[in-house]
């Protein structure tokens, strides 16, 4: 099977030839090319080349056209701060609540800073043809304000300023949908809708139902391709029953929740993506890595509907080549269907 066939089969809740695995590598591309993180992310050609080399080395079942989370606030005019060994961060929040009524979304299709994402996606598409899925990323309209306003100001807005909240969601939703669709047009196969604020770890289910849930429903309905929703290591079990109603097909799950329980709760309506511990992974020996992979496959793999990955949506810079290769070897060893008990 090609990676595309393998992934589509598992998303159809059937068993492919083996468990697919997504190594959601971003920063490792800079290492591969011997570039600083800032230089690496400065153009689409670098990210294309990085993704190509990483998949050649680790054999995983996707390309990941994600650059860095704050690229979206950068499109709004915010400043991004680079570090030598971690993902770029958004600097001081640029949006005060008084500015919301006049805030306008940048045009996602023509925004200069986003062109490198489309360039990388187009190059990956030409290279992968239809054999390897290309996974694009958007921040959900509901989660983006953490970078726009800062976490505290945003929580105050959610709880105390419903009108301004709605206005901000309108702006963000337009941007999110346009950015997702522009990536799909450039060649992305599917879009990961990053929505950590909707996790019950961050916001109670009753507020989620009135906010993030409805926003996800409206946004995902207008994204012209398949979506996966990722909670960036936040818990999801308490909302698993309603997530299919958002229109998502896949959910990124946390290492703090049991894959067996998640699988049961998904009821073949959602596929699972996860849930290796991305933080601890840095220190795993080859033996430990293989044991964790084996266990995840045992709990999540049966019947398809499962893609092995780490739980955060981005492999940390410090995770070693040996560990990533051990994941590959372990999937080849334990991930062939039919799975052995």
């Amino acid at each position, binding site marked *: 099977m090609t990676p595309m066939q393998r992934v589509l089969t598992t998303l159809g809740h059937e068993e492919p030839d083996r468990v697919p695995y997504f190594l959601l590598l971003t920063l490792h591309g800079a290492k591969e090319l011997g570039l600083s993180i800032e230089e690496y992310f400065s153009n689409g050609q670098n990210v294309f080349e990085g993704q190509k080399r990483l998949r050649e080395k680790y054999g995983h079942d996707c390309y990941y056209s994600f650059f860095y989370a704050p690229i979206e606030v950068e499109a709004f005019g915010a400043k991004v*701060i680079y570090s030598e060994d971690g993902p770029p961060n958004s600097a001081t929040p640029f949006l005060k609540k008084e500015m919301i009524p006049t805030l306008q979304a940048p045009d996602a299709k023509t925004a200069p800073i986003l062109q490198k994402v489309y360039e990388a996606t187009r190059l990956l598409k030409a290279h992968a043809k239809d054999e390897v899925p290309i996974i694009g990323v958007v921040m959900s309209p509901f989660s983006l304000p953490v970078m726009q306003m800062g976490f505290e100001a945003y*929580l105050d807005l*959610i709880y105390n300023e419903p009108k301004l909240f709605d206005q901000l969601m309108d702006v963000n939703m337009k941007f999110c949908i346009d950015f997702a669709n522009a990536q799909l047009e450039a060649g992305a196969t599917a879009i990961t809708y990053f929505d950590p604020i909707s996790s019950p*770890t*961050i916001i*109670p289910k009753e507020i989620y139902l009135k906010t993030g849930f409805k926003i996800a429903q409206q946004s995902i309905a207008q994204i012209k391709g398949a979506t996966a929703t990722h909670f960036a290591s936040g818990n999801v079990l*308490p909302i698993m029953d309603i997530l299919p109603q958002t229109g998502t097909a896949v959910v990124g799950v946390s290492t703090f929740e049991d894959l067996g329980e998640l699988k049961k709760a998904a009821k073949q309506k959602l596929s699972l993506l996860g849930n290796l511990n991305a*933080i601890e992974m840095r220190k795993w020996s080859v033996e430990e890595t293989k044991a964790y992979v084996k266990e995840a496959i045992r709990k999540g793999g049966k019947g398809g509907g499962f893609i092995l990955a780490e739980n955060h949506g981005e492999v*940390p810079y410090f995770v070693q080549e040996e560990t990533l290769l051990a994941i590959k070897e372990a999937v080849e060893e334990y991930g062939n269907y039919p799975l052995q008990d």
Partner: protein
Amino acid sequence: MVENIEAFEESLLSLDRIQAKEILTQEPDTALFEALETVVVPTMESIGQKWEEGEVALSQVYMSGKICEEIVEELLPLDDETRIEHPNIAIMVYRDFHMLGKRIVLTFLRASGYKVSDYGHQESIDEIIKRIKSDKIEILLISVLMLNSALHLKELTDAIKAANLSTKVVVGGAPFRFDTHLYQEVGADAFGKSASDIIDIIDTLKAK
């Protein structure tokens, strides 16, 4: 008293500031510190514990702490000399820009009657050493979100030791929750899984 704790918790989680204040001011003024110890601290610990167990969300921890802090500050201003000044505590975010964790812990401590110096966002080790020396900080609380920020804390804890300071370092934030041995690796003395751990940690470090 248990009823008070339950009622106070319920009022905080439902964002009922008026009821929360009524519960705290049932006792005469002289008993305020007792109310902080017997009602505020156990309530905030309970809410933090419930977050740890997945029963409440972080936004509820934040909003509860904020209401609590506002009420307590009305009754006991930040510069009030009866606030708990010992040990000398400072709190900061190191290298990254994610401020919510610091804010929640600071809120919790202030609502519990502590005086705490807020160092905000810090990057320069020299500047941090200078401040903890001049403020005679005994316990330095550090919040981070990014793994690379957490790993760079080792340079700071080494510098504190090299400067012969006896300042204890307590860390918190997502990387320490996902890797419970990480705090030792970066040379910290303790870590908190959630804000609710902080009073116990301070008490333990004081006893040492």
